[in-house]
């Protein structure tokens, strides 16, 4: 919005610039002349001036002169100087002598009198400017009283030029002035016609107009070729101000339909610059002529409300649906162009009008908001960080931390040796995320209570910064597991109770776990061994190596170190490894995957030998084929960088849907998307997603294609179709072919600061240049420097002999102050601007 206003203002400035640069203008606004002789001798040919003659001892009504003075400034822009001529007492000439001449103002061009105005017609700036310009633009602005006069002018203009017809209830009003000022600029281009007759207005318009308000319409006479036909009219819908008239005339001046053969993103027209939308009619070679007529028809309907452009699709490579026939570009920067499939021209018009209405409402709202903001001081001091606020609302609750040992610089190292593995939470007691994690950690402690060999502890880095930096903890929170004789492992997963507990439990067992016998290996795959992990149901990984394949085994072990705590990994390289691998029909080095408690075991060859590749492969293999997406597991699937085919379900999905989706997911091994589902009962935030996409919650289950990584379009699987592999596949094909219209697009918005900061720089500035107290302060806050002034009661000697040092300082400071001032002021302007950009 502000950008648009800027554009308006700049065009107004441009307008004024034109106006002021045509005639030369005087430097002073209101001239004073000593005598009429002096005045008349100074008149230059072709120069216009408005003169007031006053007796030298002016009884002058002060407000009247103020109006004249300010009108002098306004008229200066139009090359008219305003002069106050003092009449000497004895003068009895034409202008000074007569009593009634003194109640008039005289408009001269050169020394020729153009018009006399009674001063009571010049009651304010508007009336002075309006009347003077009216007199000057005698030819450019025709005054009409009857319909016949108007029709005469119209007929003369037809086919030649356009007409601006204005009705003002009275002359000398602000609207009158606006029309005159516009005529000053556009008078040579369009014929201006003015009336004050209410009857004439009524005669020219179809419905009953409000005669108490001014009215302006643009008559397209240039296009009208048939003498019998009246010119088409486009009324100005906004109030009559110079800015609105200017804008209206600009729009009328623009071509009706712009023909473009360029990417719509790059197109900019007068309409967009003036904050109006631009409608593209997408055309093809075959239908071009018909489309052009449609475009013109629409353009007439939308004249003054939106621009219309005709775009030949043959000339431009457009990456949109073939069916799309209309595109809408809004002036708001960063808004993507909407491509639509519309059936009727009315739809186009409603679309634009609705947009404008919404925008109007938004603008109003925004203004209201701004007002509120000012009153509310922007709510800057209200916490809007959900984590910080939640933690501070929870601070009174005492946490059950008895299970968690407090470690200090003194007992840290001794405590580490007490348990087989010590979990340490490094945190800062003032930091919100740390405290949030501490809460989950206390739940973990309750959860793991009684687990042998695990000691949960914490270090407050605010108390023991030395210890934390010694342990190389630079961020809070950090969780590490220290084991005797091993390198500590830093936790890198979600800060949730479940995830943490599982990490701690899995870390208990070495990773990978060396299995000694076939039986152990089998029990391991069934999830029965080791017993510590029997309560946790993870996918088990078993690396099978013949002793010869040591390189792969080393990589596997290294990968195990990296994945420690996250994955259940075992390894078997006894002599009968071959027998084990044969059982699952693989040959070592191989990887066996036992999902869901060993009911199914998959085997695959371990072909990759680099640690990174192996880690990546294991991570990939652990992903489900048709997973239920939850808050904790989404990042794993996001990392694949693929679009999501996601089924939203109010609860568990039905067998049928599950089967179909699984078929779809399994059917294409190297597929280009993530097929998944979301249980709204388990992940209620899914409702938030649906509301963002559709405003309401559509009927469930609902299958969506979400392009999370490219473009952000959301497509909705037609609800009338049933979710079967076939239907989905054919829908996906249509999607790929660009035949479907997205239901929604993910916001492209950047994450900007939610609220402004206190602008201390600006607040400090008033006090900077003078080094004086801030005007708004209480005197006590910054006591003014009063040498000796308030030391009454101090020692007298001090005052008798002011110390050299202090005087030197006092003399010195203003000097320093002055030296710094100039560059600082210069710098300050820049600062201010820069800061507002931030």
């Amino acid at each position, binding site marked *: 919005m502000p950008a648009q206003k800027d554009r308006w203002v700049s065009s107004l400035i441009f307008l004024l610039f034109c106006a002021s640069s045509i005639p030369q203008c005087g430097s002073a606004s209101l001239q004073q002349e000593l005598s009429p002789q002096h005045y008349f001798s100074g008149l230059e040919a072709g120069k216009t001036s408005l003169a007031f003659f006053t007796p030298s001892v002016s009884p002058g009504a002060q407000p009247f002169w103020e109006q004249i003075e300010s009108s002098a400034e306004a008229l200066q822009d139009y090359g008219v100087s305003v002069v106050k001529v003092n009449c000497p007492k004895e003068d009895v000439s034409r202008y000074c002598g007569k009593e009634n001449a003194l109640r008039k103002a005289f408009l001269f061009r050169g020394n020729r009198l153009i018009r006399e105005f009674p001063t009571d017609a010049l009651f304010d700036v508007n009336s002075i400017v309006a009347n003077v310009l009216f007199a000057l633009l005698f030819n450019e602005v025709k005054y009409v009283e009857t319909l016949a006069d108007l029709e005469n002018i119209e007929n003369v203009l037809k086919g030649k030029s356009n007409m601006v017809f204005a009705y003002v209830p009275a002359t000398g009003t602000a609207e009158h002035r606006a029309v005159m000022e516009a005529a000053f600029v556009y008078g040579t281009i369009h014929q201006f016609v003015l009336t004050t007759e209410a009857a004439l207005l009524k005669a020219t318009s179809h419905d009953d107009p409000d005669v108490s308000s001014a009215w302006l319409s643009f008559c397209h006479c240039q296009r009208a070729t048939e003498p019998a036909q009246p010119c088409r009219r486009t009324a100005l819908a906004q109030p009559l101000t110079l800015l609105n008239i200017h804008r209206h005339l600009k729009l009328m001046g623009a071509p009706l339909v712009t023909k473009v053969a360029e990417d719509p993103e790059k197109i900019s027209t007068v309409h967009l610059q003036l904050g109006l939308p631009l409608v593209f009619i997408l055309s093809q070679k075959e239908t071009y002529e018909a489309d052009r007529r449609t475009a013109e028809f629409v353009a007439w309907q939308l004249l003054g409300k939106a621009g219309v452009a005709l775009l030949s699709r043959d000339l431009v490579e457009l990456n949109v649906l073939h069916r799309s026939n209309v595109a809408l570009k809004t002036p708001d920067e960063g808004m993507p162009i909407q491509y639509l499939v519309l059936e009727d021209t009315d739809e186009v018009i409603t679309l634009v009008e609705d947009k404008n209405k919404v925008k109007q409402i938004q603008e109003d709202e925004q203004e209201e908001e701004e007002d509120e903001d000012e009153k509310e001081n922007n709510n800057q001091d209200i916490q*809007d960080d*959900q984590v910080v*606020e939640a933690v501070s609302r929870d601070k009174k609750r005492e946490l059950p931390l008895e299970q968690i040992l407090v470690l200090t610089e003194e007992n840290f190292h001794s405590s580490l040796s007490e348990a087989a593995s010590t979990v340490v939470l490094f945190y800062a007691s003032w930091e919100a995320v740390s405290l949030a994690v501490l809460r989950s950690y206390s739940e973990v402690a309750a959860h793991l209570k009684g687990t042998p060999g695990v000691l949960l502890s914490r270090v407050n880095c605010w108390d023991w910064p030395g210890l934390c930096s010694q342990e190389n903890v630079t961020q809070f929170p950090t969780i590490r597991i220290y084991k005797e004789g091993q390198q500590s492992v830093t936790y890198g997963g979600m800060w949730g109770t479940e995830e943490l507990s599982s990490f701690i439990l899995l870390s208990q067992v070495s990773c990978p776990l060396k299995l000694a016998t076939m039986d152990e290996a089998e029990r391991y795959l069934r999830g029965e061994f080791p017993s510590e992990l029997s309560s946790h149901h993870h996918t088990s990984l078993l690396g099978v190596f013949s002793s010869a394949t040591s390189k792969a085994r080393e990589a596997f072990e290294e990968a195990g170190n990296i994945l420690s705590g996250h994955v259940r990994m075992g390894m078997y390289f006894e002599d009968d490894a071959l027998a084990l691998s044969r059982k699952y029909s693989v040959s070592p080095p191989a990887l066996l995957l036992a999902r869901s408690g060993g009911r199914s075991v998959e085997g695959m060859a371990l072909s990759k030998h680099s640690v990174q590749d192996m880690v990546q492969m294991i991570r990939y293999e652990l992903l489900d084929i048709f997973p239920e997406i939850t808050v904790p597991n989404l990042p794993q699937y996001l990392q694949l960088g693929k679009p999501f085919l996601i089924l939203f379900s109010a609860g568990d999905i039905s067998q049928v849907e599950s089967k179909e989706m699984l078929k779809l997911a399994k059917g294409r091994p190297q597929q280009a998307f993530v097929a998944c589902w979301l249980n709204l009962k388990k992940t209620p935030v899914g409702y938030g997603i649906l509301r963002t996409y559709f405003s309401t919650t559509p009927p469930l289950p609902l299958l969506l294609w979400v392009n999370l990584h490219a473009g952000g379009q959301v497509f909705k699987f037609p609800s009338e179709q049933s979710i079967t592999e076939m239907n989905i596949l054919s829908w996906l094909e249509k999607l790929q072919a660009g035949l479907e219209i997205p239901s929604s697009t993910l916001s492209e918005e950047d994450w900007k600061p939610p609220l402004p900061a206190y602008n201390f720089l600006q607040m400090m500035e008033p006090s900077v240049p003078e080094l004086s107290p801030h005007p708004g302060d209480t005197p006590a806050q910054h006591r003014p420097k009063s040498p000796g002034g308030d030391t009454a009661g101090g020692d007298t000697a001090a005052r008798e002999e002011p110390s050299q040092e202090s005087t030197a300082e006092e003399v010195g400071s203003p000097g320093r102050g002055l030296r710094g001032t100039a560059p600082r002021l210069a710098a300050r302007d820049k600062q201010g601007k820069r800061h507002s950009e931030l």
Partner: protein
Amino acid sequence: LGLALYASSLCAVSGATFLYHDYCVIGAGPAGLQAAYFLQQAGRDYIVFERSHAPGSFFALYPRHRKLISINKRYTGKSNSEFNLRHDWNSLLSHDRRLLFRRYSRDFFPNADTMVRYLEDFASLLKLRVQYNTAIIHVTLEKNEQAWNGHYFLLTDQDRKNYKCSCLLVAAGTWVPNVVNFPGSEYVEGYETVSINPEDFTGQTVLILGRGNSAFETAENILGVTNFIHMVSRSRVRLSWATHYVGDLRAINNGLLDTYQLKSLDGLLEGDLEDLAIVKDKKGKLHITLRFYLENRNISAGIDSITLPQDELDNFATRAPYDRVIRCLGWKFDFSIYNRSLRMMPGKGNIKKYPQIKPSYESKGTQGLFVLGTASHSVDFRKSAGGFIHGFRYTTRAVHRLLENRHHGVPWPSTVYPITQLTNSIIKRVNEASGLYQMFSVLADIILLRDNATAFEYLEEYPIGVLAELEMQTGRKACNGLFVIIMEYGRNFSGADKDVFYYNRAVGEAQHAWQSNFLHPVIYYYKHLPTEREMRLRPPDWPLPLPNAIHHIVEDFLTDWTAPNAHILPLRRFLENCLSTDLRNFFAESCFLFAFTHQKLPPSCQQGYIGMQGLVGSQELRQHAVQAGLLQDYTHTDFSAGRPPDSHDGSQQQLMRDHGIPVRPLQHLVNAKDE
């Protein structure tokens, strides 16, 4: 033949007789030992020269009355060792926790002997290489293009032994007494030698020249036994609690102010000592007169012929004769041992007792010569603590870091963090950092932003006087903008004539933080590193040029800047607006929603949740966030499909931004602390 002789002597001068070290440190006082510690830790080739047989020889004699005025606060209620150093003004920096001063003395104002013992332990426990009984009596330069700075420093000791070094660190302190010469100054006793036994002053009338801590310390000692004490000096007394400068008169020494203001005969006077004259009468009493009266007279004519001020002005203040006059005028740097080629010049004005140095502590005249410790106080004289142990222990470390970068290619130590840690890293430092706190407005923490502000680099305690040279001095790059974090007192708060106890002196509200008077953190944001010119043209009284944006963290009664709403929130808003991003933390659930509804994610989701470190949050916390209106609970709201929603498009986000329920801080309580 002559040529040959000349050549051989040259050889002797430049060759074998020199003992070479990369670094030579003059003086094994606190600053010299501190420098030695850092050099030792870095494994550098260095030697410390000490004229006495033990370290800290100045403390063996001074202060004469043996009470140190640097506080030894043994309890703060906190275990944070860095924070506690803020209130430990005597310890030097080391990794050895035995070397904390609170282990040496239980006194709040310890005895100077303890300091000597401490320094001895510091040197011996850390095995610092100190060569005792070596008084450097001459320092000169030897040009050599191979040398680090284009020359070597040649040092000569009292035994004419010569030493050669690449870099000279002068930590010799200021130990030459300031002396004023006026007619009769021969009757004046010096602080260095005056008796410290109060008995010697019984029933005497004493005039003390000077108005510093040594003068008041001397007065304090004899206050109870003298008839009265008068003190005279050129300038008004400057009270450290009014000036916030620890070198001004400390409350522990100001007993005489009490007796003066209560009209108990003692008194203070201002006058230029240069105008003074002292004449001794026949009874041995000392009379004050003016040099001006003496100029026309023949002194030898005897006291009777000399005009005394009271002859003309019969109520002249110091008309009573004195038994003793004691000079307590402080110390100055010993310039005498430096060859002219080193251009060791005294400063101008009130810093003439110190050598001229740059804000990097390098001598203005000689490259490679750094002044450390008390002698380096010209950088922040009457402003900060650079002349005192608790200040120069940090500036010494800063100099060491500059040298490591300059000569050994070791860049200034820094840590790189993701941008989500920005607010935290600042809050952590302003709450515990001691160097920032003691060396306020002199040392600053610098945050260098990295590529697109997704990460930043944190540098601690860099001297802001050389901010413009940051890239060259630290070996770090500052091309994406930077934050400078310093501590400041209010601009018009401190001064000799300021009332620092007026009502409402403390600011409680974050929005008025820029008017904070007491020491508080200030963060400057620059889009580009300020140039040397901008540094020169900075506004008067500003430690730094005008920034692109500035933030004051409101002063705090407890100097604890961890309040979520008053301290952290406004700081976050400032940082967000400088970087044009959203630095809020989000629970994993919110990130999940954003991931499905936005193409871009806020940094905390991007670096946390997407990097598998999402903040799941406990049930209670999420409940609180829902109650605060910052998180939407979808569990109970919307089960019937197709029901019209409570709010239109983007309701969640709207909610996030507008945050429904206001949480008003209890403003009246915040402000109540002054009343």
